[in-house]
């Protein structure tokens, strides 16, 4: 890739998004409760949160579909209220739910959008053809979108958002419900967009997705940002690491919990695997001593690992509930 591909797409320095104190209520529900967000230009910004956290509401406000009840937001330097058309000329949004006309074919959908965006019909058709090939939908191009699989529909949805390459692209849960292969295809598109210089803001409930794809992450819960930073920073904020141990004989697990609790002076968690334990540690030196202590007490370990906490553990530490629990 050439060096200028990574240049700030806004053509000037400054964050891609600056939102302060966004509030949105729906009747009794406070969907956003003073949301602050600063998204740097370039790269992938992940917005992570459980169901109902306010992710979609935030994206809809930032993409001018919804008016906030309070607070301000500037997107690529344009105010979302005062200069909504300025924002719309630079962004695209692929919402959580299908945004294409399912009665039309994939090709017709892209041609329609191309025409609305200002291409002449022939140019719109040429652009549609190129896009459909690039996202691997050429074979299904002339079938009605309602016959597409979940993954195909999602790719068409995303393609609809890049008929004109936006400077900032919002993707609301682009991979929810997709199988690993389709998920990878979506990630490939996201990476291509970023390589081209587009800032991508995506929401997700999948921690590993945020971990792998995002340069920075905002964790939101109940309409507020409760933590923000690089995936590494977020993990570090929770403690230096996690010690995972599997004992050889599940019958000895209880004894192992006792030994580790004493040696590390910390809460030991038992996992659903009957021989596994995890414990948060601040100091790797002590972990080594604790493992030696296990050995001395006659407890054989089948496996042990000292690692960074996963984002799931980060989430648990931040909110007191795990993402999966809420999502279930």
């Amino acid at each position, binding site marked *: *890739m050439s060096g200028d591909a990574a240049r700030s797409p806004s053509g000037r320095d400054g964050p891609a998004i600056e939102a302060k104190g966004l509030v949105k209520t729906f009747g009794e529900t406070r969907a956003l409760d003073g949301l602050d967000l600063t998204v740097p230009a370039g790269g992938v910004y992940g917005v992570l949160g459980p169901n109902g956290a306010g992710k979609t509401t935030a994206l809809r406000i930032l993409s001018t579909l919804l008016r906030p009840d309070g607070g301000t937001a500037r997107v690529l330097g344009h105010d979302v209220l005062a200069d909504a058309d300025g924002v719309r*000329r630079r962004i695209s949004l692929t*919402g959580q739910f299908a945004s294409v006309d399912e009665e039309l074919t994939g090709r017709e959908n892209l041609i329609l959008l191309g025409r*609305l965006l200002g291409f002449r019909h022939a140019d719109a058709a040429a652009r549609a053809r190129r896009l459909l090939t690039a996202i691997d939908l050429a074979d299904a191009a002339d079938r009605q979108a309602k016959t597409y699989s979940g993954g195909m529909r999602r790719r068409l949805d995303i393609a609809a958002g890049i008929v004109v390459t936006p400077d900032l692209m919002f993707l609301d849960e682009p991979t929810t419900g997709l199988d690993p292969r389709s998920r990878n295809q979506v990630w490939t598109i996201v990476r291509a967009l970023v390589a081209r210089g587009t800032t991508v803001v995506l929401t997700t409930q999948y921690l590993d997705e945020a971990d792998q794809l995002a340069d920075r992450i905002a964790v939101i819960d109940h309409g507020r940002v409760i933590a923000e930073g690089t995936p590494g920073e977020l993990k570090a904020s929770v403690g230096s690491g996690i010690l995972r141990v599997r004992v050889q004989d599940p019958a000895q697990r209880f004894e192992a919990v006792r030994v580790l609790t004493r040696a590390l002076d910390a809460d030991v968690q038992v996992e659903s695997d009957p021989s596994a334990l995890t414990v948060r540690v601040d100091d790797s030196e002590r972990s080594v001593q604790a493992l030696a202590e296990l050995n001395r007490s006659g407890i054989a370990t089948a496996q042990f690992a000292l690692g960074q906490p996963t984002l799931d553990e980060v989430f648990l530490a931040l909110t007191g509930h795990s993402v999966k629990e809420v999502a279930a």
Partner: protein
Amino acid sequence: MTTDLAAGEAIDFELLSVLDEGTRPRPAGRFSASVSHLYRAALRVKHSPAQIIDVTLFPAIMLLMFTFLFGGALAEGGTGEYLQFFLPGVLVTTVLMITMYVGMGLSSDAEKGVFDRFRSLPLWRPAAIVGPLLADAARYTAASIMMLSFGFVLGYRPGPGGAAGIALAVLLLIVCAFCMSWLWTLLGLVARSERTVTTASMTILMPLTFTSNVYVDPSTMPGWLQAFVGVNPISHLVTAVRGLMGGTVTTGQIGLVLAEAALVLAVFGPLTMRVYRRRN
């Protein structure tokens, strides 16, 4: 073509070059945006042509049923005379019934994410609503032609209004239908589901058409009902259309209809656009 950079990280160079070509033209203007939405409506008809038959089949059955089943009883001169009286009325009903479809279409777009996509484009906002309404005008014309042809087959003969009268009647009808559609567009955007829109529009339209002069001469009705039929705008429209086709229309009748249509447009047009812009 993809190339592996690191484990799990692939950059798709074909996609990259497609993205590089995606420079933004000037967004479509008002006219071209509306035409693009018209193009969408045409594509939808292409994929399910049954929707055209749908909207004309029901009125055709009504025309047959009323003419031959009740016609003899409803008009002194028997079925033939009743057809002369009833055809303009059934024409109005047919076209007004079709207007409801625009609301259903909008609400189904809004239920899905299609509307969000359109609303996030830098476009003249009313195009998304004006486009489908233009498509409807084509549908009204088609339905009118079908009903009129069917009427001719059954024995309808134009009165002193002649062909010009019929053409003007259809034109007036289309103008009124266009204005009335804005009531359904508003309903389509406010209602939570397509089903609600269908039920609500039927609940408004059915009683209005039945308590008008579409089916029977109001002079046979009780006084209180006559009073209502007299102020029902659908009666005014039917009177004007009948008058144009029969060559007895007055300027006052046409003026009244146009004024009512303009009033509906002036109220529901801006309301629709306001809701469209602010929808949450």
